[in-house]
């Protein structure tokens, strides 16, 4: 009880002290899964955010930034609870996260009401930024990626395609974004189905896909499911080419699937092999903190998202308010990140440049077409 009273007093004191505090420390919230089935992603985001934050605070700015990390377990209920907590903390001027589209969209309702800017590094469901003027993202949507991939596959002569995706908000946007583009381009979708995330045995599904005899398979999955799918595809001797979204772009895909990943084609907006100095700087910092592992696309997006937010906070100085931070975010133009230049358009969508990548000789190799 005394502890609670103390906490209350602290909160009250913090609220009163906010204007004075704002001069030296600005608080941001970051909701992300740190435990549970998707913890590996959230842990990576936190690592990327810490790299960005340490750099920012070491740069000798007139103020420091603090990020409060809260564990959402990729659970929509937890996500909205955290959102309420962040909204109640008057010192927090901007929020990052969540990981999945589903949780981000659930939390977005709270941020919309409170007028607190939310920038997700990964929520790629088309409806997310439509919720209110406070929602931003730093990832290509499936409305952008689907047509891009459809065109890529059509240029290879694959007219009759199969599409599968995980049964989530995001997975549905993968299927719809892609299928519509295929049909618009005169192709046919021979097979379209959803599977449960975390399914271990894809062999029944693969047999069923093969019965439809597609020219190529387009897939909406993350690297865990992707690795299982590709391995079992190889087991069953299926040679149909596989295309995927940037969500599967992780070195872990190749690590888990081994040579079954050979020939998989996907899009990305981050290449750790890019010689650009900022990319190499991030890759070096990441390796230092991760036992020499190479970052995938998601940590890179998180790193950029945090830096975009930090830039907005800086722009909103002095005395940043939630509204000022939102406006500064909305004005982000040509932000030079490791995932390319980011500009938010009027719908708060980033326009991302996508790169075509193929797995060759156990590595992601950029390809011209």
């Amino acid at each position, binding site marked *: 009880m005394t502890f609670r009273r103390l906490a209350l007093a602290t909160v009250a004191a913090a609220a009163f002290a906010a204007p004075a505090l704002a001069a030296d420390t600005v608080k941001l919230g970051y909701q992300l899964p740190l435990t549970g089935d998707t913890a590996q992603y959230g842990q990576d985001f936190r690592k990327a955010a810490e790299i960005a934050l340490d750099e920012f605070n070491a740069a000798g700015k007139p103020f420091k930034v603090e990020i409060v990390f809260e564990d959402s377990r990729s659970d929509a209920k937890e996500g909205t609870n955290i959102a309420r907590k962040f909204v109640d903390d008057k010192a927090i001027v901007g929020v990052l996260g969540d990981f999945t589209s589903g949780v981000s969209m659930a939390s977005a309702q709270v941020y919309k009401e409170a007028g607190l800017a939310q920038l997700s590094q990964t929520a790629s469901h088309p409806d997310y930024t439509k919720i209110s003027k406070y929602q931003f993202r730093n990832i290509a949507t499936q409305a952008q990626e689907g047509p891009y991939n459809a065109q890529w596959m059509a240029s290879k002569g694959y007219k009759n395609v199969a599409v599968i995706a995980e049964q989530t908000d995001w997975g549905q946007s993968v299927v719809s974004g892609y299928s519509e583009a295929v049909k618009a381009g005169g192709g046919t979708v021979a097979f379209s189905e959803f599977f449960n995330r975390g399914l271990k045995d894809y062999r029944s599904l693969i*047999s069923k896909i093969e019965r439809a005899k597609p020219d190529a398979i387009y897939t909406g999955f993350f690297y865990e499911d992707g690795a299982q799918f590709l391995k079992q595809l190889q087991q069953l001797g299926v040679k149909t080419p596989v295309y995927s979204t940037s969500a599967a772009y992780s070195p872990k895909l190749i690590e*888990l699937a081994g040579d079954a990943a050979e020939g998989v084609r996907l899009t990305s907006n981050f290449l750790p092999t890019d010689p650009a100095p900022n990319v190499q700087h991030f890759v070096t910092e990441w390796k230092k903190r991760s036992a020499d592992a190479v970052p995938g696309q998601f940590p890179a997006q998180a790193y950029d998202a945090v830096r975009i937010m930090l830039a907005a906070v800086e722009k909103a100085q002095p005395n940043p308010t939630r509204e000022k931070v939102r406006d500064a975010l909305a004005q982000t133009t040509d932000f030079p990140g490791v995932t390319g230049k980011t500009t938010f358009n009027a719908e708060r969508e980033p326009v991302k440049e996508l790169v075509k990548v193929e797995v060759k000789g156990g590595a992601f190799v950029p390809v011209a077409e």
Partner: protein
Amino acid sequence: MIDPYYLQQLAIGLSLGMTYALMAIGFTLIFGVLNVVNFAHGEIYTLGAFAGLVVISATAPPVVAVIFAVLAAGALAGFSLERLAFKPFRRFTDEASLKSRAMRESTLLSSLAVSIVAREALELLFGSQMRSAPAEYLINTPVRVGPVILVTGDFIIFGVAAVMLVGLQYLLTRTRAGLAIRAVSNNPLGAKYVGIDTDRTIILTFVVGSMMGAAAGILMGLYYGAVFPAMGFVPGIKAFVAMVMGGLSSIPGAVICALILGVSESMATTFVSSGWSDMVAYGFLILTLVFFPNGLFGARRERV
């Protein structure tokens, strides 16, 4: 001539069913036969897989050594589980406590608690990402049998499950230890009165069942090439359904039902979206509970 597609789906279903059966055997021994409510078996399975992986990555020993290490880890895990989550509820030896259903069923929560702690601990220790064993240990080399394709692991799992099933049936019906297990399950108080060391019998059953759970874990880890802290959850549910369908106390019943489950799931994938194939398992559970409260392979004990 049957469409090779259906033959392939049947083969996949049988192999899927065998993987459920592998898990269901140890689970049924503890939960069904010994009649102890235990929801931590899935974590024993996960622990077995992780123990195997740690041994493999540390010393790259021959497969036999991996199996022994995993069995040892399983035995230890089973012993500790019993000590932590079950023994404290047997500290009262008066007749009322021994007969009390509440006393016995409170292990539902204590075993669940242990399972949550174990899973989160594994997550903290290893992270929740998927890991794979080195390729030379994996048991998923494709094997063509006529029109269908299986993998080496399917035969290994079939062999192991058959040995476990026959071994347990022998233990339960032909040995004194098995007789003691059945006696304790049937009437703990009575067993005590006739001089059976109930504590030892219960610990023995946990150790044997958990060794099987751990072995199933590492086998499945090498079969799918994926080891992660939450891996025990889904197989645990499938094993539970198979056990209930099989009539709780019948291990052969659980194995047959696991096979039925696997085949129905893979066949159902043909007609409904793969996202719905889990519905088959739950549908069967509900149908069994409604129409065959004693399970398909009629146990005499009424308690589901």
